[in-house]
């Protein structure tokens, strides 16, 4: 009996060992990068001319392979000279996810993550991958105090399935589908007595989105879309009438398209995003659009030049007060940025960057003498370090 048990045990061990031998969970990997810059901004709108050093961004990653199919990843992000004592910048837990990969056709990510949307969303904060110092505007997270970048793009998801399916020779079909929270829903109505837990979606709706595209050699293109509900129309009933509950949650639809192509030393990439709100109101519009196109040239393995053009168009609704009358008006704010720059990698881990950008701002409102035009220049130099 004892001998039989011993034999069974030995048989089990011999069956199990090869399976375990194929994978040994490694140590936790800690890595990251930062980008520090010097910028000169000419006078623009109410801002005076200014020169500034900045630790634009620092990201710290923690990654661990938990088994052959499971891996965990955490990303902390610090922006704009973050200092809690000085109340500068911001510190964010950008990502904390668990990934299951069974095959190339099927990957599952669970936890806080940046969903795939167009070319850049997923890698927008990976500064070592990008030649820009100032990124195409809606991806420039350090500008989020000035530009509502979160309205253009889905920034957080919690469940995502993605992968690719091989098509004909060298062609691949990429897909991703994700779910997340609707944003800002946790804010209670002003007349509500209830309290809510911050950071929690108190609605019964979700962010739902995805991307599908095709890759063929150095060509990549795709379309992206997302659907969620927002609550920042609350209170508009004061001006347009109707039941307050009608504006508790308004549906938002984002549609994107992306294209990129590399031909020898020449690269091109472009994107388009449009954001629409299903508000059914003639007198209110918060619709937005954005596009960018970048043409680049690798002079050699280390030096890359590019020229780029970005456009951001935002409808907005203002309140006009005249005598005792209060009315709404629709305006339009366009930002156009032609920009050029270079990136020089002195090693695999250190890249110097320089960029000049002309910023053209055009605000049009249907009120005499209220429209504005302005323009200015940004000159920036930076070093991006991957460690």
């Amino acid at each position, binding site marked *: 009996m004892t001998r039989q048990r011993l034999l069974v045990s030995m048989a089990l061990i011999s069956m199990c060992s090869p399976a375990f031998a*194929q*994978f040994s969970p490694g140590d936790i990997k800690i*890595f990251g*990068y930062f980008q520090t810059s010097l910028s000169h901004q000419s006078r623009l709108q109410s801002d005076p001319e200014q020169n500034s050093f900045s630790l634009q961004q620092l990201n710290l*990653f923690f*990654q661990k392979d938990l088994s*052959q199919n499971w*891996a965990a*990843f955490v990303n902390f992000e610090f922006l704009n000279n973050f200092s809690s004592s000085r109340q500068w910048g911001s510190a964010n837990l950008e*990502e904390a*996810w668990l*990934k299951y*990969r069974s*095959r*190339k056709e099927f990957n599952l990510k669970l936890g806080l993550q940046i969903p795939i949307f167009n070319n850049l969303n*997923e*890698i927008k904060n*990976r500064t*070592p*991958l990008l030649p820009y110092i100032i990124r195409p505007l809606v991806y420039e997270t350090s500008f989020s105090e000035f530009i509502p970048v979160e309205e253009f793009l889905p920034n957080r998801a919690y469940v995502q399935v993605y992968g*690719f399916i091989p098509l004909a*020779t*060298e062609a*691949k079909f990429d897909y991703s589908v994700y779910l997340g929270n609707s944003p800002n829903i946790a804010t209670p109505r002003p007349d509500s007595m209830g309290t809510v837990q911050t950071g929690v979606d108190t609605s019964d709706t979700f962010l739902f989105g995805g991307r599908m595209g095709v890759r063929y*050699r*150095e060509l990549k293109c795709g379309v992206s879309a997302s659907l969620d509900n927002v609550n920042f129309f609350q209170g508009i009933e004061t001006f347009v009438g109707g039941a307050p509950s009608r504006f508790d949650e308004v549906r938002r639809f984002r549609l994107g398209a992306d294209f990129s192509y*590399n031909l020898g030393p020449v690269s091109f990439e472009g994107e388009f995003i449009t954001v629409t709100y299903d508000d059914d109101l003639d007198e209110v519009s918060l619709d937005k659009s954005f596009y960018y196109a970048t043409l680049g040239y*690798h002079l050699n*393995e*280390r030096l890359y030049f590019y020229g780029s053009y970005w456009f951001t168009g935002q409808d907005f609704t203002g309140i006009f007060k005249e005598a005792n009358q209060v009315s709404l008006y629709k305006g339009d704010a366009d930002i156009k940025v032609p920009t050029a720059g270079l990136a020089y990698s002195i090693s*695999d881990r250190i890249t110097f960057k320089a960029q000049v950008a002309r910023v053209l701002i055009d605000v049009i409102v249907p009120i005499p003498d209220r429209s504005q035009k302005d323009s200015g220049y940004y000159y920036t130099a930076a070093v991006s370090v*991957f460690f």
Partner: protein
Amino acid sequence: MKPSILVFLSFVVWASSAQSQVAVIANKAVPINEIKKTELLDFYTGDTKKWDNQIPVIVFDLKLKSAVKDTFYNFLGKSPSRMKSIWLKKMLSGEGEPPKALESEEDMLKKVAETSGAIGFVSKEKINGEVKTLLIIEEVDHERRP
């Protein structure tokens, strides 16, 4: 005299072409005996991470610039900087790690022979019986083409 010069020159051309022939090698335990360019590219870009028998694919690269490395990446249709960019993107997205870069072709042979699921590349004449040859890249450097 003239014919002998021609024979000599032909030999030089043949010899330089032969030198730039590259063999794609793999550990003997991998479940295939030959590989297509598209499959090889998928391994080296991290798009395919497991062999059909579920063993993880371990990809090796050469650290230093060499004719062998150039021929290999020319065959894949990617410049070394483009490959670096692809690997960096995978790494920073938490999707994988770049191939481990080895000092020499001798190291490559040794590592591929002793690592389950490993794949790499060496000059054709360096192949030994310890590894499996999946593909011979016949393409020669454009500059050396007669």
